[in-house]
């Protein structure tokens, strides 16, 4: 550790450049990771919402509604169907407008339409179900969130692709800067390396201090970028809580595991820190290896 600090002190500008670029890369990577996690989580959340809501005319007999419900259930394309009668609709309306007595006075249960909330098994069934419902006689309006899901999907895809390109560029830039800074340090210690080689030092022995310094910079940059991101996240906690008030949880499916993105939780923070640390260390290892390799041909 003493040797690492001595080396950092002796080449402050190169060390600062290496640290800054690592910090910048890791900080932006974390921001991208959080943004993508939230967008993906929101997409998953929307996919679990009632995907088609059909409003019937107010005078529609319940039997007609049940007939539509049963036919849909028999199609095998729905996961669940929830019937909301006029009384339940009024209750929902009351709950939503409890702070506005004027709005409550103007509305009664008989003017609210009964509805069915239909959860499709797959998003591709949505247009088919919507078309079927539109053909039914008592139907007043069919709402389904295909457009929103499609827009979110295309946004996520765009974000994913552009983030990947940006991320690769950041990593490339970090490796170049870190390799150059390490090469400069090695050039300053060229005679020492030559001597160590003559004394029989192995390549790993020579490489070790540069690798240790790179790992130190990578870990420090990942730790500080994580702290700043977490600080920002906590600062906006109140805003996020009110903005996502109706959303109970945002999750992200990662292969076999499901990561909860919102509300804030230690597992998501640990995942963020681990990701940042792994990238920081990987960049440091690759850069140190590339830089030292140039001088280690016996």
């Amino acid at each position: 550790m003493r040797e690492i600090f001595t080396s950092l002190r002796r080449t402050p500008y190169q060390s600062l450049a290496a640290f800054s670029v690592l910090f910048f890369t890791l900080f932006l990577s974390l921001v991208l990771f959080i943004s993508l996690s939230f967008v993906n989580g929101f997409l998953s959340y929307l996919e679990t919402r009632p995907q088609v809501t059909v409003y019937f005319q107010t005078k529609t007999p319940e039997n007609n509604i049940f007939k539509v419900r049963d036919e849909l259930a028999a199609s095998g394309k729905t996961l669940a169907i929830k019937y909301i009668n006029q009384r339940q609709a009024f209750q929902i309306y009351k709950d939503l407008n409890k702070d506005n007595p004027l709005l409550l006075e103007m509305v009664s249960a008989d003017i609210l339409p009964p509805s069915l909330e239909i959860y499709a098994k797959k998003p591709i069934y949505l247009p088919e179900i919507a078309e079927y419902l539109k053909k039914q006689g008592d139907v007043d309006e069919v709402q389904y969130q295909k457009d929103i899901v499609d827009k979110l999907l295309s946004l996520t895809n765009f974000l994913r692709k552009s983030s990947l390109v940006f991320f690769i560029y950041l990593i490339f830039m970090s490796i170049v800067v870190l390799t150059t800074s390490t090469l400069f340090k090695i050039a300053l210690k060229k005679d020492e390396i030559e001597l160590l080689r003559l004394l029989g030092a192995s390549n790993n022995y020579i490489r070790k201090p540069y690798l240790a310094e790179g790992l130190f910079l990578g870990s420090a940059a990942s730790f500080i970028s994580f702290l700043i991101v977490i600080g920002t996240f906590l600062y906006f906690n109140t805003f996020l809580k009110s903005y996502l008030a109706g959303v109970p949880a945002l999750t992200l499916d990662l292969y076999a595991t499901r990561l909860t993105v919102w509300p804030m939780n230690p597992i998501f923070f640990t995942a963020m820190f681990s990701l940042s640390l792994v990238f920081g260390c990987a960049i440091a290892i690759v850069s140190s290896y590339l830089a030292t390799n140039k001088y280690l041909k016996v």
Partner: protein
Amino acid sequence: MIVFDKVSKKYPLGNFALQEVSFEIDEAEFVFLVGPSGAGKTSIIKLILKELSPTSGSILIDDEDISSSSFKKVTQLRQKIGVVFQDFKILADKNVFENVAVSCRIQNLSHLETKNQVKETLALVNLDKKERVFPIQLSAGELQRVAIARAIVGERKYLLADEPTGNLDPKTSWEIMKIFQKLTGKRTIIIATHNSDVVNSLQKRVLVLKEGELIKDKRKGGYDL
């Protein structure tokens, strides 16, 4: 044991550093390599260290042929050899103890072994009271003693010295040679020099080189420039 068998070294421009040089150096033998500048003394040192590969001929160290360019065990070979240079090559940012300890760490000695061996070796070269001193505070003779300590510490069985007294005044040169003499019989010592006073006084084996050729091999010899 070191064996040179008809070793030649030709540089790319066509000039020969060594021409068909053959000799054998036994275990724990003390040998001087002498000759004027450009005679090939440093080339022999570099060939033993595998800094250079011969153009022809073979070099055996402990029965292992190191002359082939495909020889890969350079690190292991160099760990058996301690080197002392004319310009000392002491690490300026490390103190005396650390400079010597570097050699132990390269040989994978434990922390405790390193500590004990460095202290013991520094006592041998009369630097035991200066182990925390940095090179900038040392005289040329003391720097060369640090270099010797670094070259002999641990398990190194060969000691190569390339003009070890070249940068020293006569009195200090003698002090350095006394240290080499103390090591006689403990390891194989090869010293390249053109200091005839030292060579003539110590009466050790002398290999005389001239223009890349071995012209004399005297068992208890002297040397005239």
